[in-house]
């Protein structure tokens, strides 16, 4: 009975407080524990989910970095038939880290001089002891050499593959293609003009298709090179244009340059004579003067007579002819014999203002319209353009244009009078033909066919004829301006031709810079003797490939001109 009554054993107040605190503490601990568990479970769940996700959708460990598409480091350049003209391939490069060489340096230098004799043993040894970190020994090394160098077993040698620009056709169309610097950026030609397009990852997968036809290009280069060597000329240029579209089928400038080693030649060879160089091309301009006069209504028929004395005094100067008529002559005869006196009178009738307007319309007063960055600008008399200058411009002296501009002029004249800017890109669906610009009337264009055919059939350009291909054209022999004076002996000869003349399809312009006389030319240095055969040879080679059917029975309508030719005494 000594059991205390509950009332007697009532806890002490502080103890009671303690129990309340404890319970509170316990609840807090439970809360924290629960929170920690949730956090922990969340982390575990996150990791598990991530693992599951990776298992389902992630890459597996053995996966390689794959190249699913072959995209070259720099886009290819191909010709109009798809033949490669420039490509980037992986080439072997041999380099050395002199500081990492562990073998005998003298022995290594000896071995390197044996394998790569472009440098001597001493030079290699000096290079190895120079303490510099890195040297290229050979870029674009042959596999056999790489194997031999690798067999040396020197860890300091670095043998790697690097993208390298290769021009499989070597010198072919070198001035059109241009070349790249050591970092693979274009510094000349189309490589420079389309550098962005060729190096951009989005566009470089598609090759850049040029309008160049490599077969025509080769024929033109070969024929020009032969003539240049034969006549000891210091340079040459040639252009072939499609009359209908203005596409450049071939364009060359000699002396040639190999874009695989652009540094190996003189700056003169790297100069593009077809677009950058401007020349006074002489009588090849005369057809334009006649066409302008016809379009202006000054010449209604090729039978129109002009007084052609032996010399023509005009505006304080005297105009000469190489073969003076000394009588009245018709327009047909003026073109046939390439008379300066006759053409000067036609140009005089035309007048300065009209001549300026025509030349501007034909694109002869501004820069050469072409994609290349290496392009010249035509030189005109400018502020001195008076009546006498009008006469000289009429027969091609006093105005300097690039050979490509001359070809462009003939393209306009024989494309029914419609001008299309020349282009180096193939005209196709991706690059449609832009709208042309009318310069001459269609009738003038048609009538001029017979006149230029006459020059080749009976005039100064006989040697340019390719039998069956109806070549028409005009020779041009211009005196070269040397130190401000026209040389009497040094010429620039050119020929601008069109074929087939009854349905013009291609324009060809060839030019020789300072050709010398040979025994075959009987001492002459005029265009009819040295550059006209280039045109003949090129046309007979390329015309069948370009789809021009030879036909001995077809000619343009010669009844326009033949009645106005006086029979020669011989």
């Amino acid at each position, binding site marked *: 009975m000594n059991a205390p009554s509950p009332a007697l054993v009532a806890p002490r107040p502080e103890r009671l407080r303690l129990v309340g605190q404890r319970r509170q503490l316990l609840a807090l601990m439970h809360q924290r524990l629960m929170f920690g568990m949730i956090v922990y479970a969340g982390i575990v769940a996150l990791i598990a989910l991530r693992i599951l996700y990776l298992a389902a959708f992630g890459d597996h460990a053995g996966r390689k970095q794959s190249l699913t598409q072959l995209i070259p480091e720099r886009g290819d350049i191909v010709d109009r038939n798809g033949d490669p003209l420039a490509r980037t391939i*992986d080439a072997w490069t041999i380099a050395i880290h002199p500081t990492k060489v562990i073998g005998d340096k003298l022995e290594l230098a000896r071995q390197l001089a044996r394998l790569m004799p472009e440098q001597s043993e001493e030079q290699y040894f000096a290079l190895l002891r120079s303490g510099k970190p890195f040297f290229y020994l050979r870029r674009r090394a042959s596999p056999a050499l790489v194997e031999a160098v690798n067999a040396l077993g020197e860890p300091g040698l670095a043998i790697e593959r690097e993208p390298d620009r290769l021009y499989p056709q070597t010198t*072919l169309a070198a001035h059109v293609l241009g070349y790249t610097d050591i970092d693979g950026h274009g510094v000349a030609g189309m490589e420079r003009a389309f550098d962005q397009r060729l190096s951009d990852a989005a566009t470089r997968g598609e090759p850049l298709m040029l309008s160049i036809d490599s077969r025509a290009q080769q024929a033109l280069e070969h024929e020009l090179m032969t003539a240049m060597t034969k006549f000891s000329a210091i340079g040459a240029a040639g252009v072939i244009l499609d009359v209908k579209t203005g596409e450049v089928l071939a364009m060359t400038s000699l002396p040639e340059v190999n874009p695989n080693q652009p540094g190996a030649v003189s700056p003169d060879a790297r100069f593009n004579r077809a677009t950058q160089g401007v020349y006074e091309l002489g009588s090849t301009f005369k057809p334009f003067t006649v066409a302008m006069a016809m379009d202006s209504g000054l010449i209604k028929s090729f039978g129109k007579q002009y007084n052609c004395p032996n010399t023509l005094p005009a505006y304080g100067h005297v105009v000469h002819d190489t073969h003076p008529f000394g009588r009245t002559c018709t327009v047909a005869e003026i073109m046939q014999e390439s008379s300066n006196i006759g053409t000067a009178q036609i140009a005089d009738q035309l007048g300065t203002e009209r001549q300026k307007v025509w030349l501007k319309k034909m694109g002869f007063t501004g820069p050469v319209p072409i994609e290349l960055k290496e392009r010249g600008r035509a030189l005109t008399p400018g502020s001195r353009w008076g009546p006498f200058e009008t006469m000289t411009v009429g027969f091609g002296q006093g105005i300097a244009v690039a050979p490509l501009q001359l070809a462009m002029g003939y393209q306009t004249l024989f494309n029914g009078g419609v001008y299309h800017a020349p282009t180096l890109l193939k005209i196709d669906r991706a690059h449609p033909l832009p709208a042309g610009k009318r310069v001459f009337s269609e009738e003038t264009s048609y009538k001029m066919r017979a006149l230029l055919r006459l020059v080749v059939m009976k005039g100064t350009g006989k040697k340019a004829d390719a039998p069956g291909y109806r070549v028409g054209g005009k020779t041009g022999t211009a005196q070269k301006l040397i130190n401000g004076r026209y040389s009497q002996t040094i010429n620039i000869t050119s020929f601008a031709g069109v074929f087939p003349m009854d349905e013009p399809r291609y324009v060809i312009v060839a030019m020789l810079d300072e050709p010398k006389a040979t025994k075959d030319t009987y001492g002459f240095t005029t265009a009819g003797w040295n550059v006209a055969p280039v045109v003949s040879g090129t046309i007979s080679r390329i015309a*069948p490939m370009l789809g021009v059917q*030879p036909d001995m029975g077809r000619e343009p309508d010669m009844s326009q001109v033949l009645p106005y030719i006086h029979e020669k005494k011989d």
Partner: protein
Amino acid sequence: MSGRSFRSVFMVASCAGAALGCYLVSLRVASERAALEDVENQIVLAQRDVRVLQTEIGTRGRLSQLERWNAGAFALSAPAADQFLKGGFELARLARPEHQVDFKAPVVLASAPAPQKTQPLEQPEVDDSGVPAASAPPAALLHIASYKTETREVPARSVVKLPLTAANPTDKPATADRSASPKSVMKPGLAAAQPKAAREVAKAVTAAAKKAVDKPVATATRPVTKPVRIANIDPLAPLPGRHSATSKGKTADR
């Protein structure tokens, strides 16, 4: 009872099995994808090799190199304008056999086959020589079409100018150079149309050959083909069984 108590275990096991199955499927897909990528990789590498090899071939066979080989060894040149043909007929024309005079052929008397049987319908000549015109067989009236044009160009009327046919050539025996087939016929009118040729060949044979009339006139109109293109038979000639068509072009087919 036991089934109910193990229910959760079954649930967990089936869930785990399903998850494992899903994982295996995904693993399988991943490995297939990797294999496919390997193949694609190989294709790209092969394409790169092809490209390198093409570039090498292109570089070794570049146009300037071909030009050099051509200059040194092949010496090929562009075809001339007259070497282009417009169609099958021009090509067939080139295969026309070249007519050759065989001087070693035996001398045969002209009177041996009866020439009157095949006398042509050239009335003026026949009248001059006095042979009755009615003797022409009906077969001679047939004109057999062929591609040959020479016979039409023969001016048969020029007979009056020719002294050789003053006498009747068929009356007298005459020697003839029978180089052609035995079917070749003697036609004074035709032979007379080619007086020059007849005279040349006559000189070559004998004096008696002045009367020879059925000379082949090959020298007058030689085909323009080159000697290397000789064919033995004329592919365009009518069949040999016909009346007057012969394998040699210069005897007439009429």
